[in-house]
């Protein structure tokens, strides 16, 4: 039987240089006695859109937090554009996060005391931009996201879909190289969630931003170039682990698809 490895969905989208490559190798992380990651390996190229799937408690959010430098793994390496993220101190990691990464969380998590405009400008203000320039950059996001006229609203005065679009603009306004989105459609209804996903994916493509989407929703994952699956703290990447026969049928007894390096 002629075995070939199936490579699906991401032709040409993976960068071949270290530039923008984001990598976690053999990551381990425990909270107290409870292991969340047990040798998780992940890699994305600049501009790639990757869905990280898995059931609740599988470790997918912990993986995202380690990749984003929010958490430091107990063991393993995190590299971004060739730099070891896990070896930086908190101040340096925080600076790197502000400069290179954007975040979109479930339920928006806007700062309730701030207006929509201030929320979007926040990452720029934290990065030291002057107010007029930061606000002018923030305002450019309102029309394309269908938020015109809502500049002065606070999060309590926005619908779920509007809040999430503001959160999305806040994640992208600094034109980061990587955006981490954790269940970005949260509890939105199908139509609103779909709209948010289309805006998120289109904006990321336009800016050439890498997008790492953590989700347990297949319909959200379907917007990505490819998916990886987190299970029991390990990552299986079907892209290069599925052996198929000549007819394209998956062959049984595929080696255990856990945590193999690329």
């Amino acid at each position: 039987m002629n075995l070939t490895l199936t490579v699906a969905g991401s032709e040409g989208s993976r960068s071949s240089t270290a530039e923008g490559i984001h990598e976690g190798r053999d990551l381990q992380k425990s909270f107290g006695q409870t292991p969340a990651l047990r040798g998780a390996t992940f890699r994305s190229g600049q501009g790639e859109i990757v869905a990280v799937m898995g059931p609740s408690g599988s470790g997918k959010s912990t993986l995202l937090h380690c990749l984003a430098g929010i958490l430091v793994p107990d063991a393993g390496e995190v590299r971004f554009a060739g730099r070891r993220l896990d070896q930086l101190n908190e101040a340096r990691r925080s600076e790197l996060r502000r400069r290179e990464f954007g975040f979109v969380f479930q339920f928006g998590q806007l700062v309730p005391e701030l207006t929509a405009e201030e929320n979007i400008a926040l990452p720029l203000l934290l990065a030291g931009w002057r107010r007029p320039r930061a606000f002018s950059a923030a305002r450019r996001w309102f029309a394309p996201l269908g938020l015109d006229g809502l500049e002065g609203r606070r999060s309590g005065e926005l619908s779920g879909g509007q809040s999430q679009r503001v959160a999305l603009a806040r994640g992208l306004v600094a034109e980061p190289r990587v955006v981490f989105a954790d269940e970005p459609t949260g509890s939105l209804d199908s139509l609103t969630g779909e709209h948010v996903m289309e805006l998120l994916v289109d904006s990321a493509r336009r800016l050439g931003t890498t997008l790492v989407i953590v989700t347990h929703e297949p319909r959200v994952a379907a917007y990505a170039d490819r998916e990886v699956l987190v299970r029991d703290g390990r990552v299986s990447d079907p892209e290069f682990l599925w052996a198929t026969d000549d007819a394209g049928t998956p062959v049984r007894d595929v080696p255990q698809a856990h945590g193999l390096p690329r």
Partner: protein
Amino acid sequence: MSVSYALLGLLEHEPSHGYELKRQYDEYFGRDKPLPFGQVYSTLARLVRDGRAAAEGNVPGEGPERKLYAITGEGEAALSAWLATPEPPEPHLQTVLAVKVILALLSRRSAEAYLDAQRHAHLARMRELTVFRRTAPLADALLADHAIFHLEADLRWIELTAHRLDQLAKELQQ
């Protein structure tokens, strides 16, 4: 069976002949599977026999194949009744998936590997449909949505089953 009702529906809109009915059927319903001419004419013959449609003479000057058909009152009633009757909810694909899982476990193959491969195949198809629906006309996008939600249902079943494989294997060994 739904082909005959589809043709009735098209005839209800306006009287038509076989060629035009095939063209319209393929446009609205037959994307992956165009309707063979033979089936168009055999279906029309059956509809006439059952009194649901009637031949109303020929389109002028265009030969014997261009007989004009129209829906009858009986045909309209049959169409209404069919449209008002829900289909039996048949999760046919899921049955195949379940058979594969059980067979894998019975033969001591890896059911988990099968489910992983199936999940990946489902997601790949969902990705194609998600791309397609974004630029498709709404009628096509609705079909894609329908397929996407069905794939999603299968994927939920795959997740749940993956969690229960050990338990299922134990039950099957008894």
